[in-house]
């Protein structure tokens, strides 16, 4: 059975959590005790109906305020697929948590309130989904019950969204009119909108073609840990443990370790279930090489004719997630695959205006939730690929060296 990871996105109160609750409820994926608890909690709050958003809004503060603060992960399966849902917050203050949920998603559902249309936050989330290269986007025009199930209104919002998305990289877009509250077009097709010819959200989730996003071309194996058993009978065992980021590695392949550039051949691949002939993403394996070459954590094993050039200069688009702004000259920790290094901000090329997608060039800092393009100088050479080619070797996080908090997320871009 295959697995689809999806995330919700959109402005505060557009109905994301209600939609997830409805999806779980109508697909009979809720346990009785969970439903009892949600019914009791709704009653205690004086809500007239069972507030299905409480299925994911599980924190005390979320329930008090009726908003989502942090991502909730939910799991369910149908006979067709297994799903991992990340229900993310719409509130701008918690954009960092939306980014957390969207970074691993195969599909993002961007909700828009049919009464309000696109807001700045809908645009920000669409921009972030595109930046993170979430391959499939669903535009969910929600609360159709409040606009008289109007086809015209749906078409207006669809046009507004596509006009904006035209400036972004959105490879696959599907638009669905719905009512998360009443369940129209969530699991079952709506009887209130006969003008809509497409399928329900659930139908789309079950059938969307997730052509393997995995890059099987370029071998990249970031070394996590060197296994040395320190026992007499295994005296010469030296294994390089890691998770295959991309490409197919086979026993006998000629490989190069970077940044040293030393070459050897793959002598054996040890998987969790025993020896393997080949490994591909996302397998976690241990490679043994024929020669004793120097390899340690942070190094990357590649094929001889296909490898990234080590570089200390990083050009990237980043999402800044801290109230203490990013400024030129600031020093930060950087974690790229398994390499931890230090970085200095050399330049801020521009900040992206999420409303117009205009590139604002005269900026001296990136504030909380800003998206911008920066140049970094790093203490140790990194082995970077373009994020478009490789979600693992093309991404990094920035860490504040005083507080240790994760303050930025970056993707490496050619253009």
């Amino acid at each position: 059975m295959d697995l689809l990871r999806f995330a919700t996105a959109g402005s505060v109160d557009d109905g994301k959590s209600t939609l997830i609750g409805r999806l779980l409820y109508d697909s009979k994926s809720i346990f009785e005790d969970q439903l009892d608890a949600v019914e009791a909690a709704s009653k205690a709050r004086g809500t007239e109906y069972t507030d299905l958003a409480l299925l994911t809004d599980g924190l005390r503060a979320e329930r008090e305020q009726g908003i989502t603060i942090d991502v909730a992960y939910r799991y369910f399966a149908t006979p067709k697929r297994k799903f991992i849902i990340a229900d993310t917050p719409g509130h701008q203050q918690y954009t960092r948590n939306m980014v957390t949920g969207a970074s691993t998603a195969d599909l993002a559902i961007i909700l828009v309130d049919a009464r309000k249309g696109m807001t700045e936050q809908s645009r920000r989330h669409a921009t972030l989904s595109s930046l993170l290269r979430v391959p499939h986007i669903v535009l969910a025009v929600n609360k159709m019950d409040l606009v008289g199930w109007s086809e015209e209104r749906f078409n207006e919002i669809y046009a507004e969204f596509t006009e904006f998305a035209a400036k972004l990289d959105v490879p696959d877009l599907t638009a669905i009119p719905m009512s998360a509250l009443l369940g129209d077009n969530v699991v079952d097709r709506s009887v209130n909108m006969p003008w809509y010819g497409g399928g329900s959200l659930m139908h789309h989730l079950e059938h969307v073609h997730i052509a393997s996003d995995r890059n099987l071309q370029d071998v990249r194996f970031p070394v996590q840990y060197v296994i040395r058993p320190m026992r007499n009978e295994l005296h010469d065992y030296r294994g390089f443990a890691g998770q295959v980021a991309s490409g197919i590695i086979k026993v006998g392949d000629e490989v190069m370790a970077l940044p040293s550039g030393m070459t050897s051949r793959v002598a054996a691949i040890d998987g969790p279930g025993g020896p393997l002939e080949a490994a591909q993403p996302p397998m976690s394996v241990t490679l043994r090489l024929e020669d004793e070459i120097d390899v340690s954590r942070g190094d990357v094993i590649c094929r001889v004719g296909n490898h990234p050039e080590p570089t200390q200069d990083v050009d990237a688009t980043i999402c800044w997630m801290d109230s203490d702004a990013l400024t030129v000259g600031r020093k930060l920790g950087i974690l790229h695959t398994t390499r931890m290094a230090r970085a200095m901000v050399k330049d801020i090329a521009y900040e992206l205006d999420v409303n117009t997608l205009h590139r604002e060039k005269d900026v001296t800092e990136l504030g909380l939730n800003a998206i911008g393009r920066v140049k970094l100088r790093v203490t140790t050479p990194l082995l970077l690929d373009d994020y478009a080619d490789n979600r693992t070797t093309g991404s990094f996080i920035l860490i504040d060296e005083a507080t240790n908090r994760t303050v930025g997320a970056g993707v490496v871009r050619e253009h």
Partner: protein
Amino acid sequence: MTATSFSQLDALEAEAIHIVREVVAQMERPALLFSGGKDSIVLLHIALKAFAPARLPMPLMHVDTGHNFPEVIDYRDRVVEQYDLNLVVGSVPDAIERGFVREEPNGSRNRIQTPVLLDTIEKNKFDACMGGARRDEEKARAKERVFSFRDDFGQWDPRNQRPELWSLYNGRVHQGESIRVFPLSNWTELDIWDYINSRGIEVPSIYMAHERDVFHRDGMWMAANEFCQPREGEMIERRTVRYRTVGDATLTAAVLSDADTVDKIIAETAATRLTERGATRGDDRVSEAAMEDRKKEGYF
């Protein structure tokens, strides 16, 4: 090899191995929380694989409430011997004896185990503790990061978690702070049993259907034993039961079940209409946010 021969269970295993290796590579003094329950058994199995053929590069840590199922303690001790592991025990009965914590009037050691856990972490200077908790267990857990930061009081701050993108885990801490790590975050109860089945992992016998003296309390079947006796009006009956979770023996209930093989457990798990904690755990019933409150205090 084609992509299809790699199942979603293999993918969960690969993700968990990656996380466990990150813990050992990034942290100075990690430990693996081991209770002898099914999730910690799967986690240990994965951690052993992650470093094979080398030994497990961290000790196990057990917070022993003293309210144990003997089958589970036997299992724990056998595993420790079989894999030549180091076991650190944080003992609640000892802590009561030396006056570090005080027994609660209702006899439950659920809350007082948290200070013992934190004390054991501090004494051993552990900067990371891995546990088998899963996001599908409970609504507060559903919100928690894989690398979950704890301040120097062991507290979780759910409103201020570190962003966690892709598979990049930030394990940086100052002295006294620590990280709780949950490599099985994305597993469901069914995944755990499928994994136990497909990898042929042994589990303590109390997970399989067996006959036991039980009585009915608050809609749950409690075992009658030295820690827990029926009150007035509650009657002991001999029933065929099994456990879905293993926790403090005074709080953990059994479920009526004939499933005496892993295959039958899988069939039952796939069809059940109750969550495992809802069906068996008195500790979550205290209030709507019982788990969140305990986690804020430092519970796993």
